[in-house]
């Protein structure tokens, strides 16, 4: 018993000397303690002749320096509660993204996102919005979605939900540069780039029961953190690995998470075009082969996101620009039936509605309409030139069955990919980043080990609901349009018209799509 008491006090003294502070110097102390106490990692036992590369200890390691990973970093750095965490971001990209000087005549990049007011608010909160603004993002205030059959359309306006804008169309490179410059200016996040993750090892469980001795606890404590090995041999230990490494997430597979989903047998073709006249509407026409979207990009620049069959996509990519413009105008304006108009709205606003429904009901119905419900279908501008290379990528729906586990959390495309038809992918990713940051904030505030599953579970519960709803919505939309079955067409058109006319429901849908619920 005496021996044990001595042991305890010895260990305690050592800890007092070498542990405690969670500042950056703690790592060196920890390493010193480990070597002083004669501990060494199992993998080092074999080659003790070589001095082992020291392990670096972190609270959070973000794998992936893309938009969502950088957003998690910015979020953590922006709050006093989480600023003290030691955070590293592993970025495989060789160069730090930087801003181009804004030039209205420069051709915008074809990789763009339509960001919602909720995403804008997130950027404002973390201090990255100024950077985006300096690159002049293109605001859009309305959205028109219509059906190729000419049967139905809906037009959303920002004023329907009392917002000045529905969102902005921004080049991804601008969003990324804004987030990275925000990270640089706060300086508290260590960016490792270019760096590749070779392996991530997760501990099996946080359970205590098998531990019998203090020594076992010490070594078990080490094993209880996740260990990351980089391709250059660097080794990191961390409480939490954030998998922000995209749809083919290595973190996800190393954590052993399953995914559900399918390929759409669709490929999206994207490019920047010039159109006839300047506009502020996000246009989307549903074709049997997939949706065609035209987004404003400032001046007469616009962005095309054209989802279609892989074969057609291949043709669209390789054909001469002149032919592409012809095909694009057909898809946007000409093919299939005539353009729709909302006959029902006119009918109701004329005296006929009152006659049909009786004056009181008719008035009530009309009262439920929002200002734009009686708006006419508008003809989008014609495409006149394709000014960038056409890029393509296959579309798929993918959802991880779990977002979190002990010591791991997935965000963005690593957790879910959606059909890009409403430009929701990146907004859902930013929503994940915000929710994870808030969860970690509460974890720190509550004095938790932030890599514990019970802390992370809160994030998963919150985001799974939102993401699955949006995925189901978008997937349903997509399925509805991937068919040319007569009755479905009419049902679909009826659905559109109904949505367009019923103010409150429409408001709900827009609000949801804007991420401002």
């Amino acid at each position: 018993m005496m021996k044990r008491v001595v042991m305890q006090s010895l260990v305690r003294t050592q800890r007092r000397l070498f542990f405690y502070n969670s500042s950056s110097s703690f790592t060196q102390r920890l390493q010193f303690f480990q070597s002083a106490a004669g501990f060494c990692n199992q993998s080092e036992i074999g080659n003790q002749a070589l001095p082992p590369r020291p392990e670096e200890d972190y609270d959070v390691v973000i794998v992936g320096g893309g938009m969502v990973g950088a957003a998690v970093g910015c979020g953590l750095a922006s709050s006093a509660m989480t600023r003290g965490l030691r955070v590293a971001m592993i970025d495989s990209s060789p160069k730090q993204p930087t801003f181009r000087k804004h030039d209205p005549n420069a051709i915008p990049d074809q990789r763009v996102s339509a960001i919602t007011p909720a995403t804008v608010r997130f950027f404002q909160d973390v201090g990255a919005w100024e950077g985006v603004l300096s690159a002049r993002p293109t605001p859009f205030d309305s959205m028109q979605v219509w059906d190729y059959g000419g049967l139905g359309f809906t037009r959303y306006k920002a004023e329907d939900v009392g917002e000045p804008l529905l969102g902005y169309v921004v080049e991804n490179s601008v969003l990324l540069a804004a987030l990275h410059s925000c990270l640089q200016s706060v300086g508290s996040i260590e960016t490792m780039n270019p760096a590749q993750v070779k392996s991530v090892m997760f501990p099996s469980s946080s359970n205590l029961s098998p531990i019998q001795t203090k020594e076992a606890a010490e070594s078990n404590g080490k094993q209880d953190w996740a260990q990351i090995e980089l391709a250059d041999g660097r080794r990191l230990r961390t409480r939490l690995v954030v998998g922000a490494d995209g749809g083919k997430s290595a973190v996800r597979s190393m954590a052993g998470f399953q995914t559900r989903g399918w390929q759409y047998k669709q490929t999206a073709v994207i490019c920047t075009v010039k159109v006839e006249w300047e506009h502020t509407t996000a246009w989307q026409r549903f074709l049997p082969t997939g949706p065609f979207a035209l987004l404003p990009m400032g001046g007469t620049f616009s962005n095309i996101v054209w989802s279609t069959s892989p074969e057609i996509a291949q043709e669209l990519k390789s054909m001469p620009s002149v032919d592409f413009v012809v095909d694009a105008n057909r898809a946007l304006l000409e093919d299939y039936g005539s353009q729709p108009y909302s006959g029902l709205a006119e009918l109701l606003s004329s005296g006929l509605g009152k006659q049909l429904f009786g004056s009181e009901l008719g008035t009530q119905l009309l009262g439920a309409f929002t200002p734009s419900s009686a708006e006419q279908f508008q003809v989008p501008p014609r495409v006149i030139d394709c000014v960038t290379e056409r890029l393509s990528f296959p579309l798929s729906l993918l959802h991880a069955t779990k977002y979190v586990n002990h010591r791991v959390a997935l965000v963005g495309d690593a957790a879910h990919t959606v059909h890009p038809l409403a430009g929701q992918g990146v907004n859902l990713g930013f929503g994940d980043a915000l929710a994870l940051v808030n969860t970690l904030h509460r974890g720190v505030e509550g004095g938790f080990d932030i890599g514990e599953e019970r802390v992370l579970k809160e994030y998963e519960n919150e985001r799974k609901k939102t993401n699955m709803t949006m995925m189901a919505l978008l997937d349903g939309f997509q399925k509805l349009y991937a068919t040319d079955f007569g009755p479905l067409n009419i049902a679909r058109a009826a659905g559109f018209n109904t949505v367009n006319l019923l103010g409150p429901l429409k408001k709900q849908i827009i609000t949801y799509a804007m991420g401002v619920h």
Partner: protein
Amino acid sequence: MLVRVDDERFRSVQWSSGKSFGAISLEPSPPPLHHHHEQPPALAERSEQVPVEPASTSTPIEGSHRSSVDVAETAKFAAIAATWWDYQGPFKPLHIMNQIRISFIRSAICRHFRKDANSARPLEGLQIVDVGCGGGLLCEPLARMGGLITGIDAVEKNLGVASLHAARDPATALIKYLCTTAEQMVHEQEKFDVVIALEVIEHVADPMEFCKSLAALTKKNGIVFISTLNRSIQSFGLAIVAAEYVLGWLPQGTHNWSKFVTPEELALLMGKASLSVEEMAGMVYNPFSQKWSLSEDTSVNYIALGVNRDT
């Protein structure tokens, strides 16, 4: 969790001079059980591996002080000590409830000591003792918030669990765990900025002495947190019938309803110990959201904060 107070029987309830608590006032606890073989048979079997008497520790407890553990009460907890940190296990309700207690304690400390509640380590520099620390469920979060934490408990096995667990994380590895009692620490003239005894007072033999000990451990203008269960119809229904018998959250016999303390009694006890009660909050469980929240309803679980106005 379990600090027993006195080897004397419960003396007459001194604070009741001004107010009668009727037939259900705090009753004398049963005669102390001094040896393992006197325990109920169900517990005796487990007690072999449970050093109920705090034997060889760094602060041996001698008979000269009025410190003895209530053996039966102690054994109940020792039996389940190893499962303290399994938050899906028998201590699940405690883990869930812990969050709301911590949130109350954190913000009350920040208010009292004028610390920035919006920082990660607002307890930096504060000496804090958790009396009846159990497996360290409270000590660890408070240590991560920057506090200099001492956890004491009469059950050595709890401390074993607590210190093993704390050693796993550098952020908690500095917590000092001692097998001792509040009275013993008073004797050693230890003083703290914050003294915390959560869900302990309903297990001690002499609540008055216990309160006095807590006060004596507190620096001038330091604060004491005491949480316990109200002796009400609701607490009988929820803490005993529901939690122990229907839901099986706690082992049967964990609580003895007659030892529960009403908020009025606690306020009087604390007042007698020169602790002026400044805040009191109920903790209410919502079975639908499965969450605890702070409330004015002190009918079952509640927590009180007293400031030591004595020298």
